[in-house]
């Protein structure tokens, strides 16, 4: 059983999705999906434990040896990612039943759970596999199902947002496919480890450069790195609340994982960072992302949109950590993947709770909610403080590592800009806090009461995680540090 964990990671939600059709009652489907997601979480926890105990786990699909067969390969990096994705999926799913009752017509509930599990399958598959073409297949499974999930939003603009995402996402996926095709042409293999071994021989060819450019651009589209972020704000804003929480906490993380995997494991850090000016490019785009995203967030009136733009800024932080290409920098980026999932998961779920009670997340509707929904608002406050990077929250930990990495390299101006960027976060978070706590509530919302437990439990679990992992950083820092060390070590270029 334990030996088959890697395939179970994908198979469980994949089988779970069609089974949903057989279950008729909405509540039953929800419970089933929750159990499936929970099982995935257990599998990923066991996998991570296995990886930490005995090193990289390799699983050959159908008994075919790599590089002919498909190989699943789990090291510390994707073991960590699997845990984040399955944990967030389960927590978000907990509130799903309550939330979609208000936001999605009853006859589509089963569809919702099917799509949700398929999307989860896709993301877990992308992360777990060690085969480049397999990445594309799973990426499409997760993307197609998430387009449909976004289109379920009750606002008609959700259709347009999903369409936008569909077009841009497909372009991104096609780019990745072209890149993989070119690599296959040059090396005759699709297995990542094999690619890594064979690419250096042909590294100086135009074809490999082109392949690299296609893959990276495609991934950046999926990642919503500035200026390829245009699909993200609308998709997050008009999707059903549960979908937003799920995607915000997982989807961009998967794309970021691919970025790291392809640059460090497949092409190799020395190729990506010394042959090409990737460092300067990503540093600049990351900084621009932070400022454009944060400033745009300040001017939004829809709170979901505020945090959607904030996600673009947060992706900027991750990309900067990545571009430093030192152990500390990569650790900061990986930590921020985890931490950002915790913050945005809590925030978007809390917004889901507000949506559930009020039916809108326009900022003026938040008036007086500090008194009417104290627990939900306190959650937004704490998660917001974490987003700003207050000490004793997770946001502080990743900020500390990111700044340390920058100062180690002597990049003072970037460090200063990042800190100024976090002040912009303060502005948009406090805008919400002031309205919620200082304005009397609207007369139309006078009967609003605290969100139901189905929301409060996952929200507060995430909020507590925001504080817990901000104080006890052993697990997250250890895993992130070990993962980034092994990534750089593989290239024989460990820098302190």
């Amino acid at each position: 059983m334990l030996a088959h964990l890697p395939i179970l990671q994908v198979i469980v939600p994949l089988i779970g999705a069609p089974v949903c059709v057989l279950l008729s009652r909405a509540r039953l489907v929800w419970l089933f999906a929750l159990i499936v997601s929970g099982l995935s979480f257990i599998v990923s926890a066991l996998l991570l434990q296995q990886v930490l105990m005995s090193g990289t786990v390799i699983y050959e699909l159908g008994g075919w040896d790599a590089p002919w067969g498909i190989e699943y390969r789990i090291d510390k990096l994707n073991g960590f990612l699997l845990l984040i994705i399955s944990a967030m999926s389960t927590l978000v799913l907990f509130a799903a039943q309550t939330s979609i009752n208000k936001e999605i017509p009853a006859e589509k509930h089963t569809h919702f759970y099917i799509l949700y599990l398929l999307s989860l399958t896709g993301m877990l598959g992308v992360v777990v596999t060690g085969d480049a073409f397999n990445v594309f297949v799973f990426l499409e499974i997760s993307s197609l199902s998430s387009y449909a999930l976004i289109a379920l939003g009750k606002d008609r603009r959700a259709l347009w947002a999903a369409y936008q995402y569909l077009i841009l996402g497909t372009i991104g996926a096609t780019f990745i496919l072209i890149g993989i095709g070119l690599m296959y042409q040059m090396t005759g293999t699709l297995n990542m480890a094999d690619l890594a071994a064979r690419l250096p021989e042909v590294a100086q060819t135009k074809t490999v450069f082109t392949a690299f450019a296609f893959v990276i651009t495609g991934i950046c589209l999926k990642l919503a790195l500035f200026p390829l972020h245009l699909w993200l704000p609308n998709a997050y804003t008009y999707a059903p609340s549960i979908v937003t929480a799920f995607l915000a906490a997982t989807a961009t993380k998967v794309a970021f994982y691919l970025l790291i995997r392809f640059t460090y494991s497949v092409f190799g850090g020395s190729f990506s960072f010394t042959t090409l000016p990737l460092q300067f490019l990503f540093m600049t785009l990351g900084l621009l992302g932070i400022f454009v995203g944060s400033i745009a967030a300040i001017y939004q009136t829809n709170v979901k949109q505020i945090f959607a733009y904030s996600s673009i800024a947060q992706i900027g932080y991750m990309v900067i950590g990545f571009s430093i290409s030192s152990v500390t920098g990569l650790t900061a980026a990986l930590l921020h993947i985890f931490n950002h999932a915790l913050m945005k998961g809590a925030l978007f779920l809390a917004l889901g709770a507000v949506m559930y009670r009020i039916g809108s997340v326009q900022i003026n509707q938040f008036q007086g909610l500090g008194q009417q929904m104290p627990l939900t608002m306190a959650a937004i406050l704490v998660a917001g403080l974490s987003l700003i990077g207050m000490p004793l929250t997770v946001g502080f930990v990743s900020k500390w590592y990111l700044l340390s990495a920058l100062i180690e390299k002597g990049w003072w101006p970037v460090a200063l800009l990042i800190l100024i960027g976090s002040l912009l976060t303060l502005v948009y978070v406090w805008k919400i806090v002031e309205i919620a706590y200082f304005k009397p509530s609207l007369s139309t919302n006078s009967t609003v009461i605290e969100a139901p437990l189905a929301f409060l439990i996952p929200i507060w679990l995430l909020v507590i995680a925001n504080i817990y992992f901000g104080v006890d950083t052993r697990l997250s820092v250890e895993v992130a540090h070990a993962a980034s060390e092994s990534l750089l070590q593989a290239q024989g270029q460990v820098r302190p």
Partner: protein
Amino acid sequence: MSLSLEVMLQMCIVLPLLATIPIALTGHKPNLREAVSIGMGLVVLYCVIKLYHGISQGENINVFWWELMPGLKISFSIEPLGILFALLTSFLWIITTIYSIGYMRCHHEKNQTRFYSYFSVAIGTVMGVAFAANLFTLFIFYELLTLSTYPLVSHSGTENAKKAGRIYLGLLLSTSIVFFLLAIICTWLVAGTLDFTVGGVFDPSVNKLLAGGVLVLFIFGIGKAAIMPFHLWLPAAMVAPTPVSALLHAVAVVKAGVFAVLKVCVLIFGLDLLAILPSTQFLLYIVGLTVFIASIIAMRQDNLKARLAYSTISQLGYVTIGALIATSSGVIGSAMHIVMHAFGKITLFFCAGAILVTTQKSNVSEMHGLGKQMPLTMAAFFIASLSIIGVPPTGGSWSKWYLLLGTVESEQFILMIVLLFSSLMNIAYLLPIPFNAFFSHSLSHQQLDSRNTLSTFQFKEAPPAVLIAIGITTVSCLLLFIYPQPIFDLARSILEP
């Protein structure tokens, strides 16, 4: 009780934080609620005094809580400056609570339970600042202090209070996030430790330019020390109820700022390094300018609380100057000034609040002739003003003496002139208030003569709880002149390992 000193240290921090629970629970019974507040205050003061005795007997008290990230620990220890600050805060907390009882009820403030809760949290975090064993711990409690005082500043919830709260939070968090945090990370990467160490943590061969830059980041980053141009949060914070202005914005919060500056100068840089850094002189002039400009602005303020706020900014500059001139007299003067100024300024704020609740007057120009109505308050105001100015027989004269001595020793004659001139300006903006109260007639008196002569002449003092608090702090100002020895001893032992 046979509690160990380590436990007592932790009680000082945790008890005020936990006190919010009984305070919130007894919210519907004001008497009980305030009894809880005062009780907690007494227990904390008892613990601090015990710790003081412990440290005078040469005991080493260290507490380790948690290692947040590798090498970055939350831990506490006792050293003379910390105990001085803790003694000051815990003593004045009790006095302020007594004062609040009179003030808040008389002024019919809303949400008093919330007020007492956050007040108590703020005190807990101040204790954390006072006992922090390293910069990292200090930073955490420094940030918590900002956050916990925000609800107190914007207490009334009006548009004005909200705006002031925004300035307060914005400036304090900006400086600490952008400069202070950066300075701490640099120190960590350069020196490899953040522990407060007598003589400093930097290697003597450290790059002077880098260390000088870090010092600039520290001095501006500790926004609570209110160095211009990052001082505007302090006048903004004056919208808060008077007890908040008195304890937090004349004592706890601002003193946490200069306390941190003093600690950074003495225990992170060390006086020897400080004296040779290229940026020290530049910073001294900036602070000197702050002292001077703030005094000038104070003279032009008609609102009494605003005048006192600018006076505080200028007096905080004294402490920072004392720390930066890097002589032992300067440090002693700084440490003593933290205490002396605290007693003087809290009395002045208490008086301002007493005048406000009794007569609804908040502008200096309306206070002519008030001495007949509130002679006790005005007498207290006079004595506290003397202490701020620094003339005998008040405690303020000692700290000013040492500060001046420090400037002479280090041959900073420009700063000496600034300090002297600023003292003259103190006279100009403080003393006319009690003089006019006693010796000139009420301006409104002539106008209102026909209608309402009685109200201006009638003896009507502030509520008794308010007067008791004012009395205690005023007497303390005088006693500190006669018995400065314990404070001097503590201040002197800061530099001893």
